[in-house]
């Protein structure tokens, strides 16, 4: 390379300095044309001053503003595609040194045509950084330009979308194509402090630099956009650093949604706390340890206030039966009698159940009998001068909360068959609501390998009369008989 530079001295007097004034800050073709001639005339980089519009050329005040004449025997200038594409981007950077840097690289490229591959070279790295910044600024322009709708005063022109944007580099003209390809059937303008673009639906024109006050102030759609922005943000995942990295504050002032950011951040902890607290009142979970004895469950359910039923004036009713029962019978929830006795199925429905179990040949004492919901849900009411507690059905959510306990009981007893009586009981075991008429009579496999059988609740029978009751009683008996038969099979 040194030999090459020495050769240059034969053509150019050492005292020659050149000043090149560029017509536009982003005019790559002009720069390329001049740079080619200067390389061919072997003018070394430190003898050229590149001046962009508005820039100062004082440094080489005595430099020659005329270009040297290319000698006839000049070699063609070597610049590979990698260099050209990089230079095209880097020249849009606002750094006034970029032209000189690119020339220096082009100059060195003549001696070492593969120099662009040497990523550890300081000049190569610097140009790559410039190009990267420009690409990033372009990308942010594609992303952060916000059009506002103005109804045009001109007849027949209709809607006009106008945006104000402040790019960091000279990227406006280079990005005209992107917006044209995207919004071809719209009439739009992008105004920037470095110039403006106008598309009328069929042709593009350039305008002078603009000021923020030239752009419209607001758009009714921005309210919707802001509420979308606020709603899609999940306060449980606050990551301000990640946001700032991709959306630096310098862009915020022209983005309508950015005004919300401080309050969204400030309110996030409260919003998250509210989300958690609201969930917590009914929470219990797999990471919380389940009691592993029936005694511990009995004790714990008395203290359970995970749903509003537990907070009523009542007692929890624990299941009862052998710890190793092959059959688990699950009802809905304790009633008034059960609540007072502290035992499951001792009221009218329990008595009816006993009769049917007898008829089916199932010994209740061999089964583990319990409820899907552990507490009695009621509303207090004054009836005929006396206070009474009127039974109320538990809500799906309350059943799901109590599922925690019934699963704990199941894990200990490990029944081979589970008989759920009524839709609430079925939900307590399945986690979803099923229709009794659709699922009765067929076993539903459970994840631990046992089987769930579903039938009606005996209290349902109590509410029926005449032929309807006879029909339901018959179906109930049939279900119990099927369970009895299946029990014989699975229990061996």
């Amino acid at each position, binding site marked *: 390379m040194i030999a090459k530079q020495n050769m240059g001295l034969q053509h150019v007097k050492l005292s020659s300095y050149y000043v090149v004034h560029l017509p536009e800050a982003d005019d790559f073709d002009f720069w390329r044309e001049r740079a080619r001639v200067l390389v061919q005339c072997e003018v070394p980089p430190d003898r050229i001053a590149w001046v962009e519009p508005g820039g100062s050329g004082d440094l080489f005040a005595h430099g020659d503003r005329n270009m040297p004449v290319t000698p006839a025997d000049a070699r063609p200038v070597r610049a590979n595609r990698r260099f050209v594409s990089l230079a095209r981007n880097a020249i849009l950077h606002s750094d006034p040194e970029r032209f000189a840097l690119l020339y220096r690289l082009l100059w060195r490229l003549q001696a070492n045509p593969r120099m662009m591959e040497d990523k550890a070279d300081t000049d190569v790295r610097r140009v790559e950084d410039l190009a990267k910044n420009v690409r990033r600024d372009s990308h942010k322009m594609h992303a952060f330009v916000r*059009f506002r709708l103005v109804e045009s005063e001109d007849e027949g022109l209709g809607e006009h979308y106008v945006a104000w944007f402040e790019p960091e580099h000279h990227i406006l003209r280079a990005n005209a194509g992107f917006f044209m390809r995207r919004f071809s059937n719209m009439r739009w303008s992008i105004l920037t402090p470095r110039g403006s673009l106008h598309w009328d639906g069929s042709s593009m024109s350039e305008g002078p630099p603009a000021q923020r006050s030239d752009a419209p102030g607001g758009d009714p759609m921005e309210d919707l956009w802001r*509420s979308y922005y606020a709603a899609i*943000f999940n306060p*449980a995942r606050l990551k301000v650093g990640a*946001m700032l990295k991709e959306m630096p504050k310098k862009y915020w002032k022209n983005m309508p949604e*950015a005004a919300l950011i401080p309050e969204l951040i400030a309110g996030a902890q409260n919003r998250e706390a509210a989300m958690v607290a609201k969930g917590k009142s*009914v929470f219990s*979970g797999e990471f919380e340890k389940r009691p592993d004895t029936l005694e511990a469950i009995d004790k714990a359910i008395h203290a359970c206030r995970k749903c509003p039923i537990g907070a009523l004036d009542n007692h929890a009713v624990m299941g009862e039966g052998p710890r190793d029962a092959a059959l688990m019978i699950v009802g809905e929830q304790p009633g008034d009698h059960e609540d007072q006795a502290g035992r499951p199925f001792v009221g009218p429905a329990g008595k009816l159940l006993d009769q049917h179990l007898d008829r089916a040949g199932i010994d209740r004492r061999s089964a583990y009998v319990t409820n899907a919901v552990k507490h009695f849900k009621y509303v207090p009411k004054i009836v005929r001068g006396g206070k009474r507690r009127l039974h109320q059905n538990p809500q799906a959510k309350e059943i799901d909360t109590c599922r925690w306990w019934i699963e704990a009981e199941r894990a200990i007893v490990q029944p081979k068959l589970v008989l759920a009586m009524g839709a609430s009981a079925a939900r307590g075991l399945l986690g979803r609501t099923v229709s009794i008429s659709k699922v009765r009579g067929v076993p539903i496999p459970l994840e631990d390998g046992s089987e769930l059988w579903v039938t009606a609740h005996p209290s349902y029978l109590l509410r029926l009369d005449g032929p309807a009751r006879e029909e339901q009683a018959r179906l109930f008996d049939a279900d119990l008989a099927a369970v009895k038969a299946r029990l014989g099979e699975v229990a061996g």
Partner: protein
Amino acid sequence: MAAQSILQKLEILADAAKYDASCASSGTAKRNSMGGPNGRGGIGSTEGMGICHAYAPDGRCISLLKILLTNHCVFDCHYCVNRKSSNVARARFTPQEVVDLTLAFYRRNYIEGLFLSSGIVKSSNHTMEQLVEVARILREEHDFRGYIHLKTIPEADAEMVHQAGLYADRVSINVELPTDSGLTRLAPDKNAAQIEGAMGKVKADLVEAKDARKRFRHAPRFAPAGQSTQMIVGADAATDSDIVGKASRLYDSFGLRRVYYSAFSPIPDASAVLPLKRPPLIREHRLYQSDWLMRFYGYKPADVMQATEPDGNLPLDIDPKLAWALKFRGAFPVDVNRASKEQLLRVPGLGVKAVGKILASRRHRALRLDDVARLTLSITKVRPFICTVDWRPVLLTDRADLRSLLAPKTEQLELFAA
């Protein structure tokens, strides 16, 4: 109840969509709005790379209008805020309302397109029909050429899912949970076989459409950005090993473009069977890092599983690449001037770009530590694992406390990290 305004509906239905992890709008066919059948041009373009139009304070990008058509749902999945038994406020858009919102936002350059999902109303088929109708109006009546991602309902007829793929750039079907037992327990209305069956059909459609386009230039495009899926992390007991295994099976079996992980976050009105603790977001981050290693760094699922701790989970304090390197110290140091690309890609702290630069530069010079430092973000992290002409980490890789030397000091960061 008084009729809800568009603004109220948008608030409810965007809020309900905030748990969806996917936001990608890239990798589809290149289109622009110039010309076309009516000569006046349409609206919208896709140029390969997606664009993030804003970032929320949760650090996530906003690229698409991500909303639900409705958050009414007949299903009762425990991890889902829209479950039937949840008492969140409900709202419902008409297809036309979604179309109008999408276009109004798109024209103002707020978004790249639409990501539409929905709770299941009436029936799966009815819901799927409504989703497809939104895409149809956008494409056919407004000549919309921006990005559309439709979340399809696995229970819907295959023909309807096929229709969705003809209008959309991407279709996705959520596997929801990494294990079948988790699905049985937490999503009682869903069925793993059905979900995978639907994915399989979409894959068959993708293959067929690709094949047809080779023969007929005008064959209709089918979901040019492919299909993706999402699973929820931390709602059941699945370990990172289970999750990585599941993800790699999905990538292999169904040619998925992406598997998204969504850390289970506390949802208002959560179901009683869900865990009290939310998993740290950093766990989700580690899973994405391991996904990245498999897609771009040549790691096999087995490699990632080897990087897990005895409990089957990836370490939270260091990234999976460093975790692997610390377990397999015998593979290091690698000589940056001689090592293969594959070996360099295994060096903690060296990314795909840095490796490319090293390979290009070393043809010109023997790299010194300073040179490598210029090509990487942080030489401190890389140094123990490499040799250069002037550097050899004599004992460093054998030091027992290497992990603590390299693990980021997170105390200060924890405020926002998890």
